[in-house]
């Protein structure tokens, strides 16, 4: 385990015009830690994830991934991140296998055919591997998107509502995959509305409210009910 935090942000602020999406967010996430970020719509969860994934590159404050400044993150840092967003990032006119092979090439995966076959098998996509992404249901697209994120064996997974649209069986596959990823030292940041699922998986819970860090706690030192009560108090305060 490395002493350098996988994620370190200091006073991250992001504005879209006059709207402040994030305000002074300072967080440290250690290697191997699973952090869930919850909050209402518009709380800044996805914006925070997009900053960490290098999609949004203009913001105030400092952010580091693996000890490197995020603003100057080069190919070596981006290669270590796996991202699942609301959209699948898959080309609708290519098959699932073609998409995964494309991303494997893009990330320089050395044993790409074996690796593509492996993630297809792990996410139970064998039957749909030769189907165009355009023809897949929302749930299957989400599974293919997860396969894409796991493909290059990243060290950090950034997940935005990864359980949306997936059935119970696929949710089980994803839960197992995340547990396995964490077991081998991977770090996970997951944005979700589902407090129960997040609590079950995470080491630490963070509540974002109107772009600010309203509360954080380790899941080992409190209960789901206590956290939920706190969450509702914070949201109630907003209302």
């Amino acid at each position, binding site marked *: 385990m490395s002493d350098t935090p996988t994620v370190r942000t200091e006073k991250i602020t992001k504005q879209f015009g006059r709207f402040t999406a994030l305000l002074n967010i300072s967080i440290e996430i250690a290697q191997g830690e699973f952090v869930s970020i919850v909050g209402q719509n518009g709380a800044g969860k996805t914006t925070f994830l997009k900053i960490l994934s290098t999609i949004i590159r203009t913001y105030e404050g400092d952010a580091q991934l693996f000890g490197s400044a995020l603003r100057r993150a080069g190919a070596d840092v981006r290669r270590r991140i796996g991202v699942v967003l609301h959209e699948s990032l898959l*080309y609708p006119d290519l098959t699932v296998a073609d998409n995964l092979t494309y991303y494997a090439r893009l*990330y320089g995966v050395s044993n790409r055919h074996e690796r593509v076959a492996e993630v297809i098998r792990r996410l139970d996509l064998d039957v749909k591997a030769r189907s165009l992404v355009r023809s897949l249901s929302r749930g299957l697209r989400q599974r293919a998107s997860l396969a894409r994120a796991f493909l290059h064996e990243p060290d950090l997974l950034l997940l935005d509502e990864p359980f949306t649209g997936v059935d119970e069986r696929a949710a089980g596959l994803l839960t197992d995959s995340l547990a396995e990823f964490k077991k081998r030292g991977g770090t996970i940041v997951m944005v979700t509305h589902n407090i129960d699922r997040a609590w079950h998986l995470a080491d630490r819970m963070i509540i974002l409210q109107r772009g600010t860090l309203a509360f954080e706690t380790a899941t080992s030192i409190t209960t789901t009910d206590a956290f939920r009560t706190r969450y509702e108090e914070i949201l109630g305060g907003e209302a």
Partner: protein
Amino acid sequence: MSGLATILRKDLKIELRTKEALSASFVFAVLVLVIFNFTLILTSDEALRLGAGFLWIAFAFSGILSLNRSFALEREEGCTQGLLISPAEPGSIYLAKFLANVILMLTTELLVVPLFVVFFNIEFERVGLLILILALGTIGFSSVGTLFSAIAVHTRMREVLLPLLLLPVTVPVLIASVETTAYALGADITVAFWFRLLIVYDIVFVTASYLVFEYVIQE
């Protein structure tokens, strides 16, 4: 140049599968030539001078169709974000997109030129020179077109915005291409200046677009 070949290969694979850009731009270019052919009766001298203009009008507008498609296919399912988070450098993404556009435009042009020759009853011998001029003109047009396509794709009026941005900037390369194409078809004119302009335009705009693309594709 990390990712260049991979992105280029992916774009061509999608086009081979869908044939959307190629079929639309080919049909459009042929229709333009058919309209000019039926509405104007030209002498052989006029056909040499004006025909080159008709040809580049057809190429420019049909090229805009395929340029519009270039980043539109990245927009669906958030694939632009997939490129941004990948290890591919912005410059490589630009060059891959640019090369894909050049290949698609040139393919359309090479399919359309024989039809143009038949429609306007033109005989010419400088085939190699014509292909070189088509390539130089297409490189200049696509260099700026690829950059503006990346800008326009994020706007609501993208189909309208692209030609509005692109055509004024590509006027020099279009004029140079028309003049040099007329010469390649057999017109008795001096084109040394236009030929140099084509080459300089290509170098300047490919380099400039490559350098500024990083700021265009991000957020």
